[in-house]
């Protein structure tokens, strides 16, 4: 069963084609990565799929709702963590969530549950302006989970966070997926997408240029070879589709000549560069 179905979705801003006829589906409970450089159209896509922005063309159904005509029904079914840390800074963490609970008509008791889930219960009474970036990010996730959405959109959830907090956020994403929540994730970090996502879509200049599992993408675009470093310091590349590769390897190992051995599988970053013609940070 699909949580998200997108067919020929487009959005223009004056003369700018921000999103250009994209089509894809996301299964229920899947963590789906939406990768692309700045301005590729990731946030515009999220804004359209979460009912904030009307598409110029195409159709999309999210949690069974048409994003153009059923926004009212759609909104309680999705949670959005924006790339901007859009919290009310003069209010405490708990007050932010209590306000969201009133908007969604959620039981106020749920506030402490989600605070506990993101490990923010102790600091919930502090003003948000005193929170670190990581704490704000966890609070944003708590707010997005408050009304138990079927689908959660995470727009660059680990950007600018230190590695420890980023790992904590990734743990939360895995936890959500295990609970059956569909996660639509945009990120700059390819290792993150590789670790979390069952499938990823590469977006470049508003178009999807590749969509598959990370392994398939790497297999399709990487080299099938091994890189060996010998005790002498010399490095060798051993092509795996060469019939003599096995014998050559056996000689190196049995002769005690081998210091290290690595696969030369392409990273998602390299695959993206190959396909999109430039890196994510460019």
């Amino acid at each position, binding site marked *: 069963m699909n949580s998200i179905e997108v067919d020929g979705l487009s959005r223009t801003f004056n003369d700018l084609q921000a999103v250009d006829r994209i089509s894809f589906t996301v299964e229920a409970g899947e963590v789906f990565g939406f990768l692309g450089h700045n301005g590729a159209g990731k946030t515009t896509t999220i804004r359209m799929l979460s009912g904030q922005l009307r598409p110029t063309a195409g159709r999309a159904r999210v949690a069974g709702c048409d994003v153009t005509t059923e926004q009212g029904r759609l909104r309680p079914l999705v949670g959005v963590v924006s790339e901007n840390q*859009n919290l*009310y800074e003069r*209010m405490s963490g708990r007050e932010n969530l209590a306000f*969201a609970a*009133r*908007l*969604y008509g959620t039981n106020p008791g749920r506030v402490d549950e989600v605070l506990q889930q993101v490990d923010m219960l102790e600091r919930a009474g502090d003003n948000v302006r005193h929170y670190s970036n990581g704490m704000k990010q966890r609070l944003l996730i708590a707010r997005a989970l408050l009304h138990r959405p079927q689908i959660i959109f995470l727009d660059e959830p680990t950007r600018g966070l230190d590695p420890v907090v980023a790992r904590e956020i990734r743990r939360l994403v895995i936890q959500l997926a295990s609970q059956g929540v569909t996660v639509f994730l945009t990120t700059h970090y390819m290792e993150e997408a590789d670790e979390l996502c069952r499938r990823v879509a590469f977006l470049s200049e508003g178009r999807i240029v590749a969509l598959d599992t990370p392994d398939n993408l790497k297999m399709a675009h990487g080299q099938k070879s091994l890189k060996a470093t010998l005790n002498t310091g010399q490095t060798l590349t051993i092509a795996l589709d060469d019939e003599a590769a096995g014998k050559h390897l056996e000689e190196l190992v049995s002769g005690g000549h081998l210091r290290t051995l690595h696969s030369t599988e392409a990273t998602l970053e390299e695959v993206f560069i190959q396909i999109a013609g430039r890196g994510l940070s460019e």
Partner: protein
Amino acid sequence: MSGQVIAAIARKDLTDAIRNRYLLVALLTPLSVALLLRLMLPDVNRLNNFTIVVHDPDRSTLVSQLRAVPQLKLVDVDSAATARDEVEKIKAAGALVIPAGFDADVAAGKQPKLTVYVNNKKNSIEQASFRGLVERQVKSLDQRPPPAEITWINVREEADSQTGRGINLSQMLLPLLLLLTFGMTGALVVPLLLVEEKEKRTMDFLLTSPARLSEVIVGKALTGIVYSVLIAGVLLALNRQLIGNWPLTMLTILLGLLLIVAMGLLMGSIFQTTMQVNTWASLVLLVLIAPSFPFPGSPAVLEAAMRFIPTYYFIEALKLSLTGTNVPRLWGQLTVVLACTLVAFFAVIWTMRRAQN
């Protein structure tokens, strides 16, 4: 529209606004000014409790209107010559000498001469208040200003004659303070409530929640209305004796604050940053409250310019409702206020929807 969503937004803003020092100052300034004036002008609540001597051989509309004001006590005299002496004798605020055929001359636009004796033994506040009362009543007789030429004569100084001059304290203070209150809320607080949501991107959160754009706007308006009503309530309580017709005054104030809140929302929908609001708010505030300033002897062009400011009609309506006179004209002013409010609200929705897409 969801009442739950609107109430949630208004509740959030009501508590959040007072944590913002800038907004808190904007809310408390009119109150502080009112309290300061109250301390400086302790007699302000008794300004309309006048005794007025009248010589009115033809039983004019003007005197009938004055008789309808509960705070006034009118004493009739038989001749114009005795009016002045009677003022000193009974320590009245002043006297009105209405010429024969006054109503007909006003109706014909002939601007008949009205002689007003002012008891200049009274303190300056009472004198000014009396002058203001007479000016308001005369002005309410006809749409075309001025309906009559007023000659002011101090009872102790025959030669001191002024036509249409003298500060008008009651006309100035309460409407000015109310407009200042609404202006501060409308030009500063309400736009900032909206602009902050856009600037901090919390509007994105609101618009992914069950809140619709119209509910966000109504929630912000409700916040502005609640603050305005609270402060206006204090101002009215402090000046309750100035109010001639409570129901009409309340209606006028409600429509006036809706107008200014709508204008604040319009500002908030146009501006994108708090800096823009801070830059323009003072100018907007000045324009909004300009019609409440007395411009004695002002040129016709200034008077005409004021009519382009929507708050002019609110102030005119407020002056009429405070005296409780010329109700048909009051309804006319309120209709203009309501029309401007509706136009502003529709402009807000249109601007926000356009920006959203």
